[in-house]
């Protein structure tokens, strides 16, 4: 039986284990001290826990221990089904995640309907979305982006792990319609009717 007896590795392991939230390398350092090679300790732990019932994962810049995904069938039993998100909320979350940062008007343009009052609130309350400044255009609209909590909840190491994002990007489906139109043979033709459609649908 291999035992990790390196005191530095043990210290990092215990710190992450005791923490009630994911920790960045800097946050870990504040506990274990400057003389610990934290990146190395994390790599050792990650390898050590691979394939076990518990695993060490990185979400954004933060690390945490969690149960292995394939054991969900064991653990799910007692947990009540978390409140279902409305379709509007799911789509809005997807639009923010794949397009971030994105304004409310941009979300509405993609969905073809206005966002009702509660939708963004629900996503912010869940800790998945946050306001991320303002767009530097007339009206200076608020723009929204996802949070580290979003990555942690959906098990994403970074936004690059968003399902299918590379394909969507390659297909141009994350570009605004005008950009896509510009790439086609209608290049340079400005259309007012586009705006009308948006407004009518809104």
């Amino acid at each position, binding site marked *: 039986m291999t035992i990790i007896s390196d005191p530095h590795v043990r210290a990092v392991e215990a710190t992450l284990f005791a923490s009630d939230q994911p920790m960045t390398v800097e946050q870990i350092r504040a506990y274990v001290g400057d003389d610990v090679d934290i990146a190395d300790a994390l790599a050792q732990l990650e390898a050590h826990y691979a394939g076990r019932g518990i695993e060490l994962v990185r979400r954004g810049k933060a690390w945490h221990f969690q149960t292995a995904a394939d054991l969900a069938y064991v653990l799910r039993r007692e947990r009540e089904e978390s409140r279902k998100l409305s*379709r509007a909320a799911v*789509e809005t979350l997807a639009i923010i995640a794949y397009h971030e940062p994105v304004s409310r008007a941009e979300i509405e343009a993609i*969905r073809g309907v206005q966002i009702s009052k*509660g939708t963004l609130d629900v996503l912010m309350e869940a800790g998945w979305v946050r306001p991320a400044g303002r767009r530097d255009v007339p009206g200076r609209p608020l723009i929204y982006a996802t949070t580290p909590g979003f990555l942690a909840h959906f098990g994403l190491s970074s936004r690059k792990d968003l399902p299918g*994002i590379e394909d969507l990007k390659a297909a141009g489906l994350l570009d605004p319609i005008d950009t896509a139109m510009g790439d086609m043979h*209608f290049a340079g033709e400005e259309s007012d009717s586009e705006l009308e459609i948006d407004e009518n649908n809104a």
Partner: protein
Amino acid sequence: MTGQLLFDEEQDALRTASVPEPNVLTIDIDGWEGPLDLLLALARNQKVDLRQLSILALVEQYLVFIDEARALKLELAADYLVMAAWLAYLKSALLLPKDPTIDPSPEELALRLQLRLERLNAMRESGARLMARDRLGRDIFLRGNPEGLRVVKARAWECDYFELITAYGQVKARTQPVMHVVKKRQVMTLEEALERVSAMIGRAVDWTSIEAFLPVHAEPALRKSALASSFVAALELAKRGAVDLQQEATFAPLLLRVKA
């Protein structure tokens, strides 16, 4: 595909009291979030890649759907009717012989509509894939009872050596016994004045102002002291019968002379 949606947001505008039997398109109007949503559902009914979509067929389906809904006397929100009008225009433009002066061309409008549907569809599918992931708190769990990490605040007090000794100096200076020392001032005593006036009066046969008996180059402070002392000396000499005093009016010069 039917509109069996579990979601309840943003549909208030469409909610009708009772929906009759599903119409021929098997679409329950209660389920749609606006015309674009409905168009996307119709497009998926074509069961082709959205890029191969027949916009004309889609427009036709939408118009039929709206007509059906009207026939059933369903209350349709205005934006569905606006979309219907716009699509009817698009349909006729697409069917008519090409008119190069129309800008934007009907083909461009059709393409824009198709791109919008593709984008909405992409986001809808991505949302579903996101929701299907192994999720924290549902499929994957963090530690149930973490001990937690603590931050202990330690205060480091600051004080340097100079501050310390300065403070002591100030304490000592503040609490040292206070001694009042009055600075020495030049004065002329009464004895000095008596001597001086007695000596000088012998030569003054005529009435002489008292100022004449004062030291000529005295400082103003000394001069005041000398005036006061000389006045008292003059009174003393008058009492002894050595001099006569005279003043012609109040505040007039005080005059002295040797007693005749």
